[in-house]
């Protein structure tokens, strides 16, 4: 098995970091870091009115992507569009019809897997703002090596060297009170896939391998996300009590 430049093995993720409520003016904010890729997301809660062309019977989302330096170009617009569609699918859009929720994403550091990091950060920021959601989204990048092995959580140098890689977004694994045995007839929710963005040509088997690995990794990330959100929300409760 080839060694990755930063010494991780194929299934290892970079150190994850998540903190919420970092900004004062924004209704919800979160900072998500995967190694050196750091993204700051802020949410301004539902405001009245929708833009032209949006369905007024549903809540709509507006995503603004701010790169670290440089002009806003097509890449940023693409990310905005992907993020918007992903968030629209996980939020309960019928609760606040005819409103617009703004999500602003600021790139603080970019070392590969930028879009997955941004999706994770936006999700945490939406939780911080209290926007009603069906479930959370966890995102991971998977790369396909020449010999067919999969590596997770790519760095920038790996993304540039690999022939094909994909960004995958899964729903997070639910915490169920009911025993899993009884509901084993249905496919578990985390087997669904919300978003998939692939770069480069990969064989079908390779893509499905990516999905399998990504799904397994998403369980780990959603565990981390739940823990970090729960810990901070218990802190908030104590602050409110004071």
């Amino acid at each position, binding site marked *: 098995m080839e060694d990755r430049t930063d010494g991780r093995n194929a299934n290892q993720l970079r*150190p994850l970091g998540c903190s919420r409520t970092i900004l004062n003016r924004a209704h919800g904010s979160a900072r998500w870091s995967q190694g050196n890729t750091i993204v700051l997301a802020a949410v301004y809660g539902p405001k009245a009115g929708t833009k032209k062309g949006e369905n007024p019977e549903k809540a709509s989302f507006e995503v603004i992507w701010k790169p670290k330096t440089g002009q806003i170009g097509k890449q940023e617009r693409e990310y905005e569009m992907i993020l918007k569609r992903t968030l629209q699918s996980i939020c309960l859009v019928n609760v606040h019809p005819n409103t617009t929720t703004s999500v*602003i994403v600021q790139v603080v550091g970019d*070392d590969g897997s930028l879009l997955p990091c941004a999706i994770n950060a936006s999700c945490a920021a939406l939780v911080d703002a209290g926007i009603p959601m069906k479930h959370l989204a966890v995102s991971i990048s998977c790369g396909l090596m020449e010999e067919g092995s999969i590596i997770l959580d790519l760095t920038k140098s790996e993304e540039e060297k690999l022939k094909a890689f994909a960004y995958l977004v899964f729903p997070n694994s639910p915490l169920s009170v009911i025993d899993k045995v009884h509901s084993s007839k249905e496919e578990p929710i985390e087997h669904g896939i919300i978003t998939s963005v692939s770069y480069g040509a990969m064989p079908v088997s390779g893509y499905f391998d990516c999905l399998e690995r990504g799904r397994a990794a998403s369980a780990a990330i959603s565990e981390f996300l739940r823990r970090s959100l729960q810990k901070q929300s218990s802190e908030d409760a104590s602050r409110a009590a004071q």
Partner: protein
Amino acid sequence: MEQRWANTSRLTINEKQFIEEALRSEIRVDGRRLYDYRRLTIKFGRYRCLPRATILSCKCYHLRFSLFCCNCREDGSSEVQLGETHVMAFVTGQLLQPYRDRPNEGTLAIFTEFSPMADPSFEPGRPGEAAIELGRVIDRGLRESRAVDMESLCVVAGKSVWAIRVDLHIIDNGGNLIDAANIAALAALSTFRRPECSVGGDDNQEIIVHDPEVRDPIPLTIHHFPIAVTFAFFHEGNTLVIDPHYKEEAVSGVRMTVTVNSNGDVCAIQKAGGEGILSGDVMRCLRIASLKASEMTTKIKEAVETYNAEVALKKVKRHPSLIAQKITVPDVEMKEASFQKTKELSADMENSPNQTSTSLTTTKDKDTNASIGRPLNWDPYSSSAPAIVSSSTLPELVGTSKDANEDQMMQTDEEYDPNLKKDQIASATGVSSGIHKQNSPPKSLKDAVKPKHKRKKNAERGAR
């Protein structure tokens, strides 16, 4: 729709009246005195990036790298928090053609981004008046006062000079954006390092940009620190306040920004519109500002020096691990050929804890590192190390990971015992992690599920 949103950030009449009345008795809403600044926190970041296509090839001359390295460190980024106001600054440099009328000087450009996350009334797209004003004030303070030495940025006169670009992102608007952004720009410029380049090649016209790993990058020459001090006036100029909060800004009609340096020079004054102020008041402001400027300059310089000392300390610590590599037994594949890789490995090992440590205030980092006392032998990717890490527990982790690695090494190869006893644990750890990867069985999906990631929440929370 946008107008309705902008209205929600306007103050109610009650709030306005309350703030004005309180100021009559010299009481400010957040409990400060009239001439007090809010708490200032300066953080620096070192984010690894590829050497960007910053080195453009000019039409006549081609540029080559002496060593193409993927781990170029990007210094020159700062994050400043002044009370609730949060500003980030990123400094980058490119080689470009100079302006025609100044062929010997580099260029400095300041770009301001009023991110919509800072304030509900900030809109994306074209910068509004406030954004342009802020950019201009900082530009005048830094560039036109010749704070940064431009002539040292010239590489080949008339053909190629360094163009420094400062990107300011306003993340959170808590009031007094100009001062905070100015401090952020100064802090980022002080820690920015540009790669060393020399003119050489066949026709003595080629510009060779040296890799930062080979030759140390050079800091910018900053002659003086122009500090912007913003005043807000109330009650027809009778009460003046320093570092206004965003609510105070909304109440007052008049604002003036004075950019002075610690030598007492006035670099820029900005008073755009509003009621008139007596000239005596303007002189008073200048005097107060020069006092505040010297305080602020000391704070910035201290923060920069602490950060630089920490960087230097990290650099020194790298060397023993490299030297020790040569002593180790050759059958571990840590040959000369893979020297670069191990250098990168150790650089990475150091850089990832850097990420956590530099996010805290810089003085704390110095203590943490000093207490370790030897090359950072914490291998974040060793699967036997405990998963939960926060930089506050860094010294403890060093102990535990060392133990874990020692156990590992006992199992894998007896030859490494002498290394352990020689206290070359840093190198041995790097080596052992190499062995570990070779000897471990092929990973299965189950391994993916194990939590192998670190918790940096504590560090992040501590930073707030």
